């Protein structure tokens, strides 16, 4: 029993407020793209050109061959060769090198004899994230080389046409250039939209309380749901504009491929905005105070969206409690949807679960919002 006329009157009025407040309007239209560019650069943790020192104790053809792979790799920058541990340890301590690769004596001989040969990697673990990535690269390169050798050895010793041992090469799926911006930007878009949506709407009801117009509205036949829907639709237009600009910035500025359909992306973003904007309105209706609502809006959107959405920290590797908490963070589902659409090009056939959960979240928040609006003055 929602009156379309009343809802439209509400929406139109709210939209006029948005248009008249030109400073906030510019901010709302510019900020998301600026944030994307700033955070996008800051968070693009592309780990390549890891500075490394090589310590070849063996100096055999085999050791040289293996080290040549490091010299040719774009993942490592070889700073030089060293003759003892000392300069290596010093370089790591002083931060000039990230890693030192040590090839032991008898490396070539043992390999030729088909023995297992250890190779030592000294790593600067103070940035554990980069360190583990560097370790992964080094491990993959050494394993690749040793398998190649072993195969050659077996063929040479008359074992005939045996297949090479299991190929250890890691194939990186979906983000084959291993560019972290491809991974960061879709998630970042989700996080920025979450913050934007709840910030934009957090003032909308508190302002009416502070100006005294809310009392007037409550004396009119307008219903809580019409009031909420009207305000939501006005801000929704702004949110949709922001979504378009930020996605375009991701695609054209950062060159992130959009593999999936724009329609699926639009639908996901629409549901997400509905929930996030209802959240901001709800805070506004509860606090009836613009400053409080704004601060709560920032806190409650920024922190969970940043920490618990799986955008920066992988959800699978979280401790149990925060991992459990991610289930009630809507940004988690939207981040998953954005990554799915952007990187994997999947459609609703795989994303409907996340979509439904977002819709459920939006509905619950909207219901609480209308309850709050229906309360009497005092």
């Amino acid at each position: 029993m929602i009156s379309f006329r009343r809802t439209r009157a509400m929406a139109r009025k709210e939209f006029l407020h948005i248009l008249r407040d030109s400073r906030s309007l510019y901010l709302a239209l510019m900020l998301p793209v600026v944030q994307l560019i700033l955070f996008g650069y800051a968070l693009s943790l592309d780990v390549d050109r890891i500075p490394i020192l090589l310590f070849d104790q063996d100096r055999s053809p085999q050791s040289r061959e293996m080290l040549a792979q490091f010299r040719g790799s774009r993942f490592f920058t070889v700073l030089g060769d060293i003759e003892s541990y000392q300069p290596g340890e010093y370089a790591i301590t002083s931060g000039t090198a990230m890693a030192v690769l040590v090839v032991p004596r008898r490396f070539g001989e043992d390999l030729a004899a088909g023995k297992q040969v250890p190779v030592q990697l000294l790593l600067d673990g103070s940035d554990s994230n980069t360190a583990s990535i560097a370790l992964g690269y080094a491990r993959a390169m050494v394993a690749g080389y040793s398998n190649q050798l072993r195969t050659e050895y077996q063929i040479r010793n008359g074992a005939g046409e045996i297949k090479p041992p299991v190929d250890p090469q890691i194939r990186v799926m979906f983000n084959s250039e291993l560019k972290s911006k491809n991974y960061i930007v879709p998630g970042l878009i989700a996080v920025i939209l979450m913050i934007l949506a709840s910030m934009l709407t957090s003032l909308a009801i508190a302002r009416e309380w502070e100006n005294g117009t809310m009392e007037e509205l409550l004396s009119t036949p307008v219903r809580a749901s019409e009031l909420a829907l009207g305000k939501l639709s006005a801000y929704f237009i702004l949110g949709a504009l922001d979504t378009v600009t930020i996605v375009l910035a991701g695609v054209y500025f950062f060159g992130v491929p959009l593999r999936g359909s724009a329609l699926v992306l639009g639908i996901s973003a629409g549901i997400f905005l509905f929930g996030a904007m209802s959240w901001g309105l709800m805070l506004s209706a509860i606090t009836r105070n613009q400053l409080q609502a704004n601060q709560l809006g920032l806190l409650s959107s920024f922190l969970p969206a940043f920490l618990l959405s799986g955008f920066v920290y992988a959800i699978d590797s979280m401790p149990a409690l925060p991992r459990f908490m991610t289930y009630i963070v809507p940004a988690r589902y939207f981040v998953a949807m954005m990554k799915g659409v952007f990187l994997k090009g999947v459609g609703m056939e795989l994303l409907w679960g996340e979509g439904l959960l977002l819709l459920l979240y939006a509905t619950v928040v909207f219901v609480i919002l209308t309850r709050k609006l229906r309360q009497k003055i005092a």
Partner: protein
Amino acid sequence: MTPHENTVIIDKLVKRFGDFVAVDDVSLTVKRGEIFGFLGPNGAGKSTTIRILCALLAPTSGVATVAGYDVAREPEAVKLHIGYMSQKFSLYDDLTVGENIEFFSGIYGVPRDIRDERRAYALRMAGLEEKEQTKTSLLAGGWKQRLALGCAILHQPPVVFLDEPTSGVDPLARRAFWDLINELSHAGHTVFVTTHYMEEAEYCHRVALMYRGRVISLGTPHDLRKQLRSDTLPEPTMEDVFVSMIEREDAALAGGKS
């Protein structure tokens, strides 16, 4: 509705905020087309009573009906039949005069065929025909109040509640505003208006004097003044009436306590 039907009926109305009694056992009726004045100092309970009548606050006990609808049980029906101007200025400053009218016309659901006519009426009433495109924030106090009144009656409500519509407005504009109230009354609207300007009581058909949540006196301005007339005070003003009523009430309260 018959001409003398009561459009506002208040029976033993009480509103408590915690221990504090803001409205204390108030009973009264207002007839159709009447200009009913609610007088009293700040904190007397005028706004609280009006908010209850507009279904904005729930009464603690007692019953009130407006235009035939119970404010506690049928708030939605009440809201369709009233216009309300709150004590705080209640239009949107960043919207133009015309946009404010259009907004209220929309949320009051003014029928399409009379929308333009009502809009023109509101503009004429507020004397703002030439200022439709003006931003509301640029209007002087008196014009703003008249525009607010124009917006509150777009849907031709039978009952209009005005909470201190003339406070902070210059005397000339106040006079003009009361002319508007008179016009509304002639058009058949019941006007329930509060003020703390005693001299404005003269413009009302009947007034209730409110003090500390209680109605301490009720009648036509003429009758109230007549009651106080004496040799020492042959022509008492409403101010005199009010002061003497309050003194009597305070004395009774003090006597009751000791």
